[in-house]
């Protein structure tokens, strides 16, 4: 693999026009990845999902070279019709279109970054991989006191031109004081057996509000790793919703740093799995300042021989007194082959805190099924109704009414 990485990297660099500084950073990132390789179960974070093995088993030899010079056609059919929205269209890891047609152009500053954020202490080798092979990183800066009028939909498309390929993509958002944005991140995969590695970076200044809804619904055989890093200043709010169902394998990782007081982070997620899927959500909320709040609700419905994993960690620094942290994960196993693993973790160094977590897993409640059947529903409908209610709980947490309605329709829950 090492040789392959090196030759693909050289090919990638020579076909793109990076500055010397960028090439230097990319080389460093590559060396970092070469040193650590793909994470395996030996690492605590990857205990339940050995991505090294999963890639080996499902893809085999990966191609790391991705030609960003190819023009891709965009089919308008995939666009969401129900609501007016701004668009970022990404095809095979390349940004094809950025259109903010509903917004005031002087309130948004679009740039590309010459330098990516890399914490040298971060041992996440997939971030290094991303840094070494991703194309130019777009940065979207929302200026002070500006709220997006319409949601932004990020279409992440893959087409049949790529297979057995590693696609790396990065996007950066800066929210200045008092600004706000709503994002729907919609995957549309028409490709087979790729390893897609995404990194989203959000910096929220004072009073900023981020609402981020990630939808992976379309069935496909890709393997995905999606990392969102959110840094929050005073009074800011972030809301992340994850619907994870379509791809064969996804690990969604959300990391929130609550650095200013009264900042709060909400992460809610659904795993709706069937066949032979393996999905994981990992949340990391770091309470680093007084009076911060976080809330996580993750629900899984697991059928056939699928596997759902939830790892959630609440970290409370000794400075972060008066923290309010809550975490709940629930799973319903519908089949004997289904599996649910959880590791809800608390790491607390301050005493005046209110932190709790709960986790429950099991079958659908027999009494509830019986109750519904005694009222004339057949077993299948009764079960569906219960599952519907179980998942709706999470959808109801969505604070934006328009998007809530849209997602309900999209997912098929009422």
């Amino acid at each position: 693999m090492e040789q392959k990485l090196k030759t693909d990297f050289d090919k990638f660099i020579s076909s793109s026009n990076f500055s010397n500084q960028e090439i230097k950073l990319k080389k460093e990132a590559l060396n970092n990845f070469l040193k650590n390789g793909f994470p395996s179960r030996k690492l605590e974070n990857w205990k339940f999902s050995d991505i090294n093995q999963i890639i080996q088993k499902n893809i085999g030899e990966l191609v790391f070279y991705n030609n960003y010079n190819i023009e891709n056609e965009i089919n308008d059919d995939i666009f969401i019709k129900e609501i007016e929205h701004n668009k970022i269209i990404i095809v095979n890891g390349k940004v094809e279109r950025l259109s903010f047609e509903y917004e005031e152009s002087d309130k948004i500053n679009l740039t590309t970054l010459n330098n990516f954020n890399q914490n040298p202490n971060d041992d996440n080798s997939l971030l290094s991989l991303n840094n070494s092979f991703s194309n130019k990183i777009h940065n979207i800066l929302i200026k002070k006191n500006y709220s997006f009028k319409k949601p932004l939909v990020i279409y992440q498309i893959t087409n049949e031109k790529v297979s057995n390929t590693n696609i790396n993509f990065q996007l950066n958002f800066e929210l200045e004081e008092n600004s706000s944005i709503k994002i729907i991140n919609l995957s549309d995969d028409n490709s087979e057996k790729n390893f897609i590695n995404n990194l989203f970076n959000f910096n929220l200044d004072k009073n900023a509000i981020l609402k981020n809804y990630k939808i992976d619904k379309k069935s496909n055989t890709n393997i995905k790793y999606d990392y969102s890093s959110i840094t929050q200043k005073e009074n800011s709010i972030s809301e992340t919703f994850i619907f994870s169902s379509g791809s064969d394998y996804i690990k969604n990782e959300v990391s929130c740093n609550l650095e200013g007081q009264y900042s709060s982070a909400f992460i809610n997620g659904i795993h709706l799995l069937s066949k032979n899927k393996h999905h994981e959500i990992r949340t990391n909320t770091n309470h680093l300042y007084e009076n911060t709040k976080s809330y996580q609700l993750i629900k899984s419905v697991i059928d056939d021989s699928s596997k759902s994993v939830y790892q959630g960690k609440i970290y409370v620094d000794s400075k972060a007194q008066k923290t309010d942290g809550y975490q709940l994960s629930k799973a319903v196993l519908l089949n004997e082959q289904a599996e649910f693993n959880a590791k809800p973790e608390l790491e607390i160094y301050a005493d005046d805190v209110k932190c709790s977590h709960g986790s429950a897993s099991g079958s659908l409640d027999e009494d509830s099924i019986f109750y519904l059947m005694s009222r004339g529903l057949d077993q299948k409908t009764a079960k569906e109704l219960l599952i519907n209610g179980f998942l709706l709980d999470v959808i109801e947490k969505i604070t934006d009414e328009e998007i809530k309605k849209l997602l309900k329709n999209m997912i098929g829950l009422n």
Partner: protein
Amino acid sequence: MRDKQIEDLKDYKYGFSTDIESFKAPKGLNEDVIRFISNIKKEPDWLLQWRLKAFERLKVLKEPNWQKPKYPKINYQDLYYYSAPKSFKEKPKNLEDLDPKLLETYKKLGIPLQEQKRLNGIAVDAVFDSVSVATTFKDTLTEKGIIFCSISEAIQKHPDLVRKYLGSVIPITDHFFATLNSAVFTDGSFVYIPPNVKCPMELSTYFRINASDTGQFERTLIIADKGSYVSYLEGCTAPMRDENQLHAANVELIALDDAEIKYSTVQNWYPGDKDGKGGIYNFVTKRGLCKGKNSKISWTQVETGSAITWKYPSCILKGDNSIGEFYSIAITNNYQKADTGTKMIHLGKNTKSKIISKGISAGKSDMTYRGLVDISKNASNSTNYTQCDSLLMGNKCGAHTVPYIKNKNSNSNIAHEATTSKISEDQLHYCQQRGLNQEEAVGLIVNGFCKEVLQQLPMEFAVEAQKLVGISLEGSVG
């Protein structure tokens, strides 16, 4: 100078050391030392071979390092692996023959062996360093056919039982410390309850670490045959000293069909002084196997001592309808560190487990609950309930919860809850308003917090444990 020493000693109620000249094996860990131990204990050849096999395995094993509390590297070649009080070369026939100094030590510890023998109805198998001192109440137990003796004695008198069960729950191929114990274990307790016998009294062992630099490697084996019941108590105090001492015991419980074992521990070993100097490293492997149908194993522990506590009393629920329980209070103060919890491994059908864990950290201490609940594919209709609550006192300490939950069976239910908080000002205010001082108020509230677990302890222990909870938290408020 002397005043200072006395002052230091005051801090630890049980901090004293008896100066009985110890009889030691040479320092170091090698085949010769293992042969020496085996030889001096007149062990049969199969056991020596078993030890050597464990030692072979130990050579390739690495010390685990995933735990939260880190400790300085232990030089295993710099430890004594065997020491016995010299006057014990010839075993005493009865209590009166004991070294008076030993008896005095026990008196200070609050276990007057002789009174206890008559009054309390507890058979005490006291371990002083590594050799069993005296075993009382044998007659009553012998009548019922119960075997309660030191493991060395059991090896001599009941080799078949020992051979059959030793290492059947904690194999010699287990983790580093368990394997170390298998290679060099010196003594410990052995209990066998014959079929359909309910042990008429609580069996109890007091452990005590005495000789300086001696790692203690106890081995306890408890077998409850079909339809039997036993309640076993383990309590520990240790003299004060500066060097860190390693304690790597192995405890194996085996419950056959319809049998029940209740294992209670009060651990109050020397935790180190206020600056975190000294103290015992308590790296113990405790594992119970519910081998038969309808069997039950229940662990109850009150952990207040040791510089570092690192243990996970576990239950393997192999038999159908078997039950595993774990009740724990862990208290850390000053620089103490604890990484403790349990593992419930459900293999049989209709198995149930319950985990109640209460952690209290004060001072600059750090406490972690780490637990595993694993319901395998075949364990249908199994249930687990877990509750872990942590209480923090002051903002220099930490409390962490790391549960691993694995459910591979759709007919089984797992519920897990955890909370972390501090003692509320309202509660404190209420108590103080009614005339309690702050320390008393905290004691009262903490006892209430722990009540669920304290209730599980046998009477004799419950009182001591309640006191211990108060003592451990002295000076942590205000």
